């Protein structure tokens, strides 16, 4: 659905879009009335708990549940045998939900119990005997790729390599993107820099652990209450893994306490359903924080080599990158997104990126906000920073000289339509932050970032109530304020007040299929569907007015909340408001509703430029972020406060990733820091107020010009912070996190090199 012909975003006056009304879920969330995953209960409810492997890699010789089954209060025990095998698309999902012949990481589920209390369930877990044969393990991506590394899957033959390897390895696949011939490009360069980088795995760090309440009756009908980013996905996957008809499982999405991509798959949901089916009673299953760290889906760790050539006047002649991601125990790391996005900010004649998807004995990675892009941007933008310094060019100027624009052939293939990178770079250069003086031991870093954004399958219903208010049902869980944005859009189209529209996230039996809330797609595609549903409703409202007036439906127009005759020729009638028409709907043809079912295309890519000032304590290596500014293209900001919140949230998570967050594995392959004490996300006092600038370069693929904003904001911070810390420390940091011991060691090593 293209940009509305009548909308010139520079001049168009929206009535409501672009304003900042109060969020509809605000009161519930601050008073505690909002119901999250663990807030549901049911009569006769049991407590579910999962037994997890303490070993990084072990063959499961046998599982003896007989003692646990005899414990009073234990109502059901499930193992892998309780799930339906055979769906090839869900093979790895099932392996991850419940181990079969091997436990592949510390925390891998091997059995589960449902009991009358948490204490009984815990006791029962201790009575389950698992006979493990401990196998050698590997958790580092480079180690896992070496010949002789312990192989996780005997049938893993690297895909997309000619000729196909004869031996199994931990390399699931290879991918390659680009155009031109980098060797020619590097010959044209005055300066070529090649560097290697590493980043550790991080967790999305959502505050709400995975939680659900499952109930399957003896008639095979099931219900599931769950915190998830995609309840239709949960329904379809669980139905398949349990051998149920999709129609027999109704899934309701709870309020969600953060997801950031981590709640786009199933972990505990099929287990809770299997337990409930076996026990014949509802089962509530809630992960502990430790389980969240050990057994949900953190992001990939990465090892990368980047090479870029420039001329003395700052033209990039070629860029290459080889990137290696480990995505845990199963194939599917976001290495393709990493390889595609590495040079997506730049207009290059010669570019090539190669990626390797590698498995290790770690939990299966899940999406994390712009999956794959932040790490690769860290590598590429670090090298650009070094090049700019070496040729004596302002880092924004270097990026402006090479920035992708409308018509640029992207490094991953397609030609860009209208995009806003140059606008972002110029806004960053104009910002007072860019010229502000720095204090002692401080450095400034800037970096650009790109994300694809996504559209996808969407279905909404808009019902006009008898009093002229409107009930809007959407199928995309609200993870970033979408209910407020959807109300604004519906009210804008209908010409009524924001408070007259109430949006809910409907359960899976109330609407057609909706893709997950992911890929920064909701404001774009659900918003697009709401526009169409509202226009469907206004057409019907006009038809009712026409009927009332006894004129032809096409002689009525909808304007600012009123049906009016299209012209004086159509007749002279007093305009009818939405409320007027709603009141008499029963006698003019029945209920009035608008619908839209769409596979939304035309999601516009988006770009951001971040800048930050870091201060380094040269005696301890401690890093403090003193100032941070985000500039990002939103296309059109529907609710600017939420857009700013997304910008700030991405920056905050990126700062944590850059400075302190990491999965720490011991020599035994066990996760050493499965809690918020030693997995250090930033606390409020670690961060400055994050300044934001919303750039609006309309997306030609959306009626209002909207682009997704949720993910791009986490792409530049790793690089921006690394560039700032490197400037402050006087030495280039090429591994994340830049935790104090690493920064201090780099400072001391540089000092001893100098002396």
């Amino acid at each position: 659905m293209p940009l509305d012909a009548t909308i010139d975003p520079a001049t168009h006056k929206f009535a409501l879009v672009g304003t900042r009304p109060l969020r509809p879920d605000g009161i519930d969330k601050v008073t505690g009335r909002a119901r999250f995953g663990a807030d549901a209960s049911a009569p006769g409810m049991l407590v579910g708990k999962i037994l997890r492997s303490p070993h990084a890699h072990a063959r499961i010789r046998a599982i003896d549940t007989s003692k646990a089954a005899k414990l009073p209060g234990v109502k059901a025990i499930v193992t892998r045998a309780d799930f339906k095998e055979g769906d090839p698309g869900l093979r790895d999902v099932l392996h991850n939900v419940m181990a079969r012949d091997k436990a592949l990481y510390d925390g891998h589920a091997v059995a589960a119990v449902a009991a009358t209390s948490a204490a009984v369930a815990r006791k029962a877990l201790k009575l389950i005997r698992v006979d493990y044969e401990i196998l050698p393990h590997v958790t580092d991506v480079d180690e896992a790729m070496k010949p002789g590394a312990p192989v996780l899957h005997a049938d893993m033959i690297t895909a997309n390599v000619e000729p196909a390897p004869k031996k199994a390895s931990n390399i699931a696949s290879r991918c390659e993107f680009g155009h031109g011939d980098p060797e020619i490009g590097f010959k044209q360069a005055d300066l070529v820099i090649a560097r290697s980088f590493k980043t550790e795995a991080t967790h999305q760090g959502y505050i709400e652990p995975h939680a659900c309440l499952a109930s399957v009756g003896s008639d095979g009908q099931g219900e599931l209450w769950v915190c998830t980013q995609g309840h239709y996905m949960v329904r379809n996957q669980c139905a398949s893994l349990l051998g149920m008809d999709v129609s027999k499982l109704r899934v309701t999405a709870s309020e969600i306490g953060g997801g950031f991509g981590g709640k786009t798959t199933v972990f505990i949901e099929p287990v809770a359903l299997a337990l409930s089916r076996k026990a014949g009673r509802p089962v509530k299953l809630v992960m502990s924080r430790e389980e969240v760290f050990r057994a949900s889906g953190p992001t990939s760790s990465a090892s990368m080599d980047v090479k870029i050539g420039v001329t003395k006047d700052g033209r990039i002649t070629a860029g290459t990158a080889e990137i290696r991601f480990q995505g845990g125990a199963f194939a599917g790391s976001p290495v393709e997104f990493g390889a595609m996005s590495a040079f997506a900010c730049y207009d290059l004649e010669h570019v090539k990126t190669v990626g390797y998807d590698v498995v290790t004995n770690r939990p299966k990675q899940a999406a994390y906000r712009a999956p794959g892009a932040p790490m690769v941007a860290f590598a590429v933008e670090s090298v650009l920073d070094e090049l700019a310094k070496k040729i004596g060019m302002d880092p924004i100027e270097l990026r402006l000289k090479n920035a992708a624009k409308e018509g640029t052939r992207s490094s991953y293939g397609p030609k860009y339509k209208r995009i806003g990178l140059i606008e972002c770079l110029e806004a960053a250069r104009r910002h007072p932050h860019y010229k502000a003086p720095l204090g002692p031991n401080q450095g400034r870093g800037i970096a650009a970032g790109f994300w694809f954004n996504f559209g996808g399958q969407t279905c909404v219903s808009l019902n006009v109530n008898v009093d002229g208010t409107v009930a809007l049902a959407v199928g995309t869980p609200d993870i970033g304020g979408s209910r407020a944005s959807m109300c604004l859009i519906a009210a804008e189209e209908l010409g009524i007040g924001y408070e007259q529209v109430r949006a809910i996230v409907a359960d899976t039996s109330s609407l057609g299929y909706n893709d997950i809330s992911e890929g920064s797609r909701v404001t774009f595609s659900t918003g697009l569907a709401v526009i169409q549903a509202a226009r469907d409703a206004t057409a019907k409202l006009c038809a009712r007015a026409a009927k009332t007036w006894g004129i032809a439906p096409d002689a009525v127009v909808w304007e600012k909340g009123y049906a009016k005759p299209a012209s004086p020729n159509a007749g002279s009638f007093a305009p009818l408001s939405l409320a007027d028409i709603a009141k008499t709907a029963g006698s003019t043809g029945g209920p009035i509703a608008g619908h839209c079912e769409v596979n939304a295309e035309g999601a516009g890519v988006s770009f951001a430029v971040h800048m930050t000032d870091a201060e380094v304590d040269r005696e301890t290596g401690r890093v403090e972020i003193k100032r941070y500014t985000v500039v990002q293209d939103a296309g059109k900001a529907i609710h600017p406060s939420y857009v700013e919140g997304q910008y700030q949230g991405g920056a905050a998570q990126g700062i944590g990733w850059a400075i302190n967050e990491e999965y720490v594995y011991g020599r035994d392959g066990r996760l050493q820091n499965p809690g918020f004490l030693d997995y250090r996300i930033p606390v409020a006092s670690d961060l400055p107020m994050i300044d934001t600038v919303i750039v609006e370069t309309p997306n030609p693929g959306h009626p209002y010009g909207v682009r997704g904003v949720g993910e791009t904001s986490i792409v530049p911070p790793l690089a921006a912070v690394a560039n700032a810390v490197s400037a402050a420390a006087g030495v280039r940091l090429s591994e994340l996190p830049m935790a104090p011991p690493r920064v201090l060691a780099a400072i001391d090593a540089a000092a001893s090199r100098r002396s």
Partner: protein
Amino acid sequence: MRYEAPTTAKEAVRLMAGKAGMARVLAGGTDLLVQIRTDRIAPDLIVDIKRIAGMRSIMTKSGGFRIGAAVSGAELGEHKALRRAWPGVVEAANLIGSIQIQSRATMGGNLCNASPAADSVPALVAAGATAVIVGPRGRRSLPVEDVAVAPGRTSLKKGEIVEAIVLPKRAPRSGDAYLRFIPRSEMDIAVVGAGVSLTLDRNGVCTAARVALGAVAERVILVPDAAKALIGSTVDQAALERLAAAASAACRPIDDKRGTKKFRIKVAGVLARRAARTALARAQGK
């Protein structure tokens, strides 16, 4: 699990000395409850000491202070005289956790949890504090540095409870300070901690000093060599550098998820030097 809340120390000792399997004292519970909830321990008996007279009060005693073992961090922070006399001890106790934690967490619990990284302990050791211990054989006093012996282990015998912590009378021209190194700004655990207490004569020469380090050994350690570096000096730059070197030399840390050996050894010296500067300024009345 049995829960008891006796009103006398004698009754608490009797319960703790009883035959029950694992018995644990509950003061603020900010360590104990976490350990229970994460399934690390499953005590058979919990003895809550908060209802015992004197456990929750701060009393001045021959010029010093007797702090009940169950006095919360918030209560310490609100005690003006204590803050004036021992600012380093109070700031160390107040660094633990958040505001919510401060309303529960106690120095008695921090001491008996026996973590090498306990924030209040290096400050107490530097201050020359003693623990009053009550047990089946009556009361005894023990220097604070002798309470913990290893991570999670104390020298307390079966049935013994720390009843109070006693801080000595403060000499004029004295100051103390505690600094910890954490990667974040709060809500974190010390990677290294350093407590320094010192006293100056009328000419500004240091006559007494104690230096203690946390998270660099199996328990909080007193570093006499670091104190010697200060005594007899005006706490000038050279003395501070000697102090830092002595502090680093005393470390016997491990590599772990929170930091490397090398890092801890270096930062221990840096923090001891910085803490000594603050203690000096306080002693000088600045």
